[in-house]
């Protein structure tokens, strides 16, 4: 026994989806987390709440609205159709968009916490040593917040691997395109292939445990951002 060919395809697709999503989230989430950590804007609370929404909403709710928005008559669907990109539901990139939104808090919150823990002083210090804004980010923020970046990446990746509801709503079940591991497990169970389901499900349990063990095991070490994904709380 072991993984079937379809299982391997699902695993490869899942890894590709998680890597793509994590990469996009780091690019989008870093400036967003920076803004949330430093802004005095009255919109800060509203934006922070929006980012945290996927923590409490059923994935099907997010998936439902995304399906509507991305459909040919939806606001985003009209744009993508006009641009000649076709419609995104039931495609890999549709899944990426869903995953980015769904895993957003798991990337933004650790980053935001670690930016807040860094404080203003190291940046002021760097400015008095003639480092410009971009230089300060590269030479001070990235090294001093590296644990925050690592935690954000690991959680964003792991959480994308674990999603199911959003995928089902906007991705469907197309092998090699949208059938990720969680959907594959569902299929195995539906067709009473419990042995196959055990292999995949057990692998996910092990994977998730190792990731969380690493994250929580490192918590409290110097510079590591504290995370509390379950509550979405901001702590230092």
């Amino acid at each position: 026994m072991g993984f079937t060919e379809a299982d391997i395809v699902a695993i490869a697709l899942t890894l590709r989806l998680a890597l793509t999503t994590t990469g996009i989230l780091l690019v989008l989430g870093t400036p967003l987390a920076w803004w949330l950590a430093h802004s005095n804007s009255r919109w800060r609370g509203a934006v922070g709440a929006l980012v945290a929404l996927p923590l409490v909403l059923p994935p099907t709710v997010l998936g439902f609205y995304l399906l509507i928005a991305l459909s040919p008559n939806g606001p985003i669907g009209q744009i993508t159709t006009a641009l000649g990109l076709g419609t995104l539901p039931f495609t890999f990139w549709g899944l990426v968009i869903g995953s980015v939104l769904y895993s957003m808090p798991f990337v933004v919150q650790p980053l935001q916490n670690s930016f807040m823990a860094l404080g203003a002083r190291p940046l002021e210090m760097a400015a008095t040593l003639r480092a410009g804004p971009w230089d300060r980010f590269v030479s001070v923020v990235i090294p001093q917040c590296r644990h925050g970046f690592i935690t954000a990446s690991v959680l964003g990746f792991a959480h994308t691997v674990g999603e199911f509801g959003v995928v089902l709503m906007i991705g469907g079940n197309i092998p090699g395109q949208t059938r990720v591991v969680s959907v594959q497990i569902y299929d195995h169970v539906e067709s009473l292939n419990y042995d196959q389901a055990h292999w995949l499900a057990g692998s996910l349990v092990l994977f998730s445990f190792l990731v969380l063990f690493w994250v929580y095991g490192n918590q409290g070490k110097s510079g590591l951002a504290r995370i509390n994904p379950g509550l979405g709380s901001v702590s230092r």
Partner: protein
Amino acid sequence: MTVSATSAHSPAELEEKILASLEARMAHQSGITADAAFRLAVDLALPGKGITAIFGASGSGKTTLLRCLAGLQSIDSGRVVVNGETWHDEETFLPTHQRGLGFVFQEASLFEHLTAGDNLNYAIKRAPQAGATVNKEQIVELMGITTLLGRLPAQLSGGERQRVAIARALLTNPRLLLMDEPLAALDHKRRQEILPYLERLHQEVSLPILYVTHSLEEVTRLADHLVLLDEGLVVAQGEVGDLLSRPDLNLGSGVETGSMLTGEIVQRDERWHLVKVRFDGGELWVRDHDHFYQQAAVPTVRVRVLARDVSLSLTEEDHSSILNRLPAQVAGIADDGDPAMATVQLQLGSSRLLARVSRRSIDELSIRPGQKLWAQIKSVAVLR
């Protein structure tokens, strides 16, 4: 009260001055009384070399002034010109990283992820090399941190960290060094450990330094020039010896009225453990602390004479235990808050001495301005 007007400085003067005329309002940092806005309004023309101490109680705006000069805090209006280079006026605002300054924070702020040596390299890499007056070896030696360069900040003591921070600030090749109470976070022992390094810095590096402190000891040991700040306003500014010899200035509670004299050691009496200090206006015999033996190379010494340790006599009394008797002329007589006492200002050459005597004595000896008499000095404290 001397608040200088900056409006009428000739170009030649601008070249070697630090002009800071600025106004800033901000909520109090305590945050509790956010509506009680703090206002800083200063108009300063400071010498473009030597150490200028900015002295005042906590909350007087010292740190805010320094942060405004560095561009770390926004100001409502103002002008900052450092030795001819405009950092801030109506048209210009240079962000902090484009200002030629070094900044030493109160708590030694080193990059925790870099070793002491790499903290220095961080500055060197970004410093303009044109016109560099210092090199790394010199500064490392000056601050005595040669053996510390391989360590991480967490492995250094508070005093060591601060010495690395000072070295790093110097290696940015600054035109102006700003120091925000660099010794305040250290205990007495560490302070005494660093002060000699700052004195060497003063002697060996020709760089204007603005030094924020609330310690009179640091002022008297380090500063050439003094700015007194209170509630965001300049109370007085001038040469440090002059200001410290002014009986009308309140330097804070617990600070006794007295004067500061600068002179050099001209003679050493090994038998009685005394040294003779000559200053403009006379000579003083001073107890020879071990301090002097060790630092024989120091050309000048500063001494402080408290007003209560000076008494007055119309004749040179020979038979007394008092060692120092100097001819002086009365420059003025000032009230000192006590109905029984008054402070007599004495002129000795270009130096000033204060004597605290009873009003009855003044009357009985009929002491008046212009009169020549003898000042008897009971005790002299060596500052450095």
